[in-house]
């Protein structure tokens, strides 16, 4: 421990590497990791809501397709899904213009499956009576779902969905394996030239930690707002 401390304070070369690499890692963080997360998460939410509603409403055939999708995604590793999509699918004629797009879609479908389960659970937690009350004032099923059930379900699911988002920020590091030049990819490149794995992996970990901490903070603030809104 003391050794480690000395190493940082005394070695100006390490300090220089640390500072130089900081922006080199942070920039792909801001330009790749974060956009990848945001776009994939946004798509994941759309997929999740659609899948959850199809399963909640018990729509024939579609319901079975959705169940199959969730089963496959939850039953296989994310890393395998990435490799399958990026290296495997081209053999079937599906080619990617960039690894980034491939990663966005894989993360979206992956998170979409998990989030759909969360949202489905929350849909079930909204009382059946409110749906009936909606019918009794002449609203259609879709109006009731969209304006009454879904808002309450998303509110209830919010903490879990945010968990998913924070998880996704970290999981994007897996995309380095399919040559997406996100933070971890860049870090690995720097390590191969500087031979300072301890310092650099610690550094990239700190940046991930920073991103997740910001998101946690955002989560707390929004949760407070949401609760205040319904008088909790």
């Amino acid at each position, binding site marked *: 421990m003391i050794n480690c401390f000395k190493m940082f304070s005394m070695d100006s070369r390490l300090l220089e590497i640390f500072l130089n690499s900081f922006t080199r890692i942070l920039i792909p963080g801001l330009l790749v990791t974060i956009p990848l997360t945001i776009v994939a998460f946004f798509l994941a939410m759309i997929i999740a809501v659609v899948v959850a509603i199809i399963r909640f409403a018990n729509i024939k055939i579609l319901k079975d397709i959705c169940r199959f999708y969730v089963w496959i995604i939850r039953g296989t590793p994310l890393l395998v899904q990435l490799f399958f999509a990026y290296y495997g699918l081209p053999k079937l004629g599906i080619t990617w213009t960039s690894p980034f797009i491939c990663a966005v879609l894989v993360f979206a479908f992956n998170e979409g499956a998990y989030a759909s389960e969360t949202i489905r659970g929350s849909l079930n937690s909204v009382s059946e009576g*409110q749906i009936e*009350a909606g*019918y009794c004032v002449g*609203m259609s099923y879709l109006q009731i779902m969209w304006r009454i059930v879904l808002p309450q379900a998303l509110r209830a699911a919010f903490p879990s969905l945010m968990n998913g988002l924070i998880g996704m920020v970290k999981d994007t590091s897996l995309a380095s394996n399919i040559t997406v030049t996100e933070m971890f990819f860049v870090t690995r490149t720097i390590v191969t030239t500087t031979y300072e794995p301890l310092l650099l992996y610690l550094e990239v970990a700190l940046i991930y930690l920073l991103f997740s901490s910001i998101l946690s903070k955002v989560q707390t603030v929004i949760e407070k707002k949401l609760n205040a809104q319904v*008088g909790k």
Partner: protein
Amino acid sequence: MSIIEIKDVKKNFHNLEVLKGVSFNVEKGEVVSIIGPSGGGKSTLLRCLNCLETYDSGSIKVIGEDLKEIKDMNSFRQKVGMVFQQFNLFANMNVLNNCIFAQTKALKRNKDEAKKIALENLQKVGMEKFINAYPNTLSGGQKQRVAIARAISMNPEILLFDEPTSALDPEMVEEVLNVIRSLVNKGLTMIIVSHEIDFVRDISDKIIFMDDGIVAESGSPKEIFTNPKNERTKVFLRKVIRN
């Protein structure tokens, strides 16, 4: 033509015969109360009247429409309001929006008109001071009064009540019953399932006594309460009046 015509309606839940041939009519503007022991099919019948439940045989006509042949279910349901035992307010909307929402979405009223109507009705039920409150901050009695305001904001022709005071603490029962009383004489047809015997005796034009899936007896409050003919009615009344 009666506003509600129920003819020999039967319904099963799986193997359980819940309605065993129910028939009666309700005239426009009448207040009809349904009483009877638990499990007798009162809620089921009421829920058939606005198609929350389907029936197996017989026929029901409501406002001239055969329920098996309704083309536009949403506009039919706008004419038949319902007040539930569990209130069922929309939890994600404040009191005012609970009363406005369906007016703008289903009746396509413009926002200002809907708001005006909602405020009038909230005043009628004494909840105008709570327009910004969310349902989970209200007492049971307050929730039920909002639910009534929400229902009448749709200007229904028929209003169904399924035990509107059964989930309330005793001290809140009266405030809700008073609101329901205030709705009488407005040309509104009401069907009320309730165990509040004094209330239904007071308010009803007609009493239906349902037991075990049939209408065991029906008549004016006077006939039913002072001179019941059916043995089961007598037993039931003895029980509830003693309580």
